[in-house]
């Protein structure tokens, strides 16, 4: 007996995105993208620079609009999903507001949604504890390290408990050790909050370690070349990275990327 398929959160079909640049040829960022993402999945978009992985994420977030094709988020147009605050977003840079304390940064989305002050403070504190920064609420962003700032950004994205988390290379600027720790924390948060995660990365190991499915993309023009199920059991931990299956999967993804890229080695 197979469990019922969870509901579709994101449905992209026939998505094309062309950027028109002044005084230059138009750039085709994405062509013919079809992708369904289901509730509770952890999806990584992986590929070399220029493959349109960030663009795809930004289309989901309604920070860009597709040139053609259709996209739904929670069954709605992305613009409506954005207005309904269906997703939380994390960029590569923590993008904290310097003039706000750590707690005030986490409270910002709640403030915009009109949550009362007391509840706001409580929820910010809970989120900061989730990312193990419970004691840093009164600090200012510039008093924290890069890794801590990124954790604040994650706490902020989770503050209003969105069912969908969009992450654009969130750990790209961190060192290897911090990055691996953050990966573990993210998995823990993902399982604790049962959100759907769409995660952009260019690290193969990171994509395999985190994801339930890896979407392999290729540039010029940006498109999806394959989608791979990652059958490593959850919960994953430091030892997962040492399993033979982990290495097999990493190799498979690497080969898929290489085929897609058309390198002759």
């Amino acid at each position: 007996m197979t469990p019922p398929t969870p509901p579709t959160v994101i449905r992209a079909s026939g998505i094309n995105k062309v950027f028109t640049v002044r005084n230059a040829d138009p750039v085709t960022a994405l062509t013919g993208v079809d992708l369904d993402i289901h509730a509770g999945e952890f999806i990584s978009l992986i590929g070399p620079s220029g493959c349109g992985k960030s663009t795809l994420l930004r289309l989901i977030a309604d920070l860009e609009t597709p040139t053609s094709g259709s996209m739904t988020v929670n069954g709605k147009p992305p613009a409506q999903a954005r207005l309904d605050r269906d997703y939380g977003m994390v960029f590569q840079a923590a993008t904290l507001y310097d003039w706000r304390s750590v707690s005030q940064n986490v409270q910002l989305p709640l403030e915009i949604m009109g949550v009362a002050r007391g509840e706001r403070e409580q929820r910010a504190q809970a989120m900061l504890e989730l990312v193990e920064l419970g004691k840093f609420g009164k600090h200012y962003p510039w008093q924290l390290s890069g890794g801590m700032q990124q954790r604040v950004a994650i706490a902020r994205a989770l503050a209003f408990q969105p069912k969908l988390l969009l992450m654009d290379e969130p750990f790209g600027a961190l060192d290897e050790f911090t990055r691996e720790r953050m990966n573990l924390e993210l998995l823990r948060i993902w399982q604790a909050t049962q959100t759907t995660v769409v995660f952009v990365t260019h690290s193969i190991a990171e994509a395999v370690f985190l994801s339930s499915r890896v979407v392999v993309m290729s540039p010029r023009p940006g498109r999806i070349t394959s989608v791979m199920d990652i059958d490593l059991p959850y919960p994953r931990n430091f030892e997962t990275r040492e399993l033979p299956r982990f290495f097999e999967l990493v190799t498979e993804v690497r080969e898929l990327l290489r085929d897609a890229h058309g390198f002759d080695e």
Partner: protein
Amino acid sequence: MRAKFQEYLPTVLVAVGFIALWEFLVTAFNIQQFILPRPSRIGGELATEFNAWLAGNGSILFESGAATFYEAIGGFVLGCGSGILVALITARWTVVSQALMPFAIAANSVPIIAFAPIMNNWFGLTNPASKMAIVAIIVFFPTMINTVRGLTLVDPRQLELMRSYAAVPFKVLWSVRIPNAVPYIFSALRVASPLSMIGAVVAEFFGGPRATLGVFITQEAAGFNFARAWAAIVVASAIGIAFYAAIILAERVLVPWSRRE
């Protein structure tokens, strides 16, 4: 405190050394007092005025300083305030601010002080408003230009994040653009504070009430009382420096986030 004292020590030494060298050179080369008075003579004039003021006889020099500072700060508040206000209004409509910016930048390079006689004509020679008007116009443009910059030069990701929260435009202005502009505004105020003293004093050179620094300096110089003219310059400098320091202090208190290394 000890570390602080050692930090300031070189500055203090340079100042003391400079004054000592000045005193020595004037004496050694027997320079005439109308060319360059000795610092001790200038200090003497200041002491005389101070004693007169202490004795309750009043000091025209200190009264002048207060009057000029009143003009400077009046013009400063008026000019900076309206500069910030206009920037806020125009930044709401990007098209308007983009249309206005070239004019503001052009106006910023006009020698506004040349309008001083016109302002004397408009507001009256002895009316402080004529000097305030000049000061206000001088500080208006740099303040407005910097504020517009602060409101528009926002990290695009900070704006995208607000968009992802579906924030209304007013919230973006209030919670992102304005706080982003505060350090820009302060750097404009830092420039504007000494400018306002310069503007007031120079405007007074074109005429004004007897008890103002500009008039005081021109009259004492005309009467060959150069040490007294220099004493007035010292007072003008002291007020300008104190004003500037007050702005820096306000910035430290109000903008703690710009204190990062």
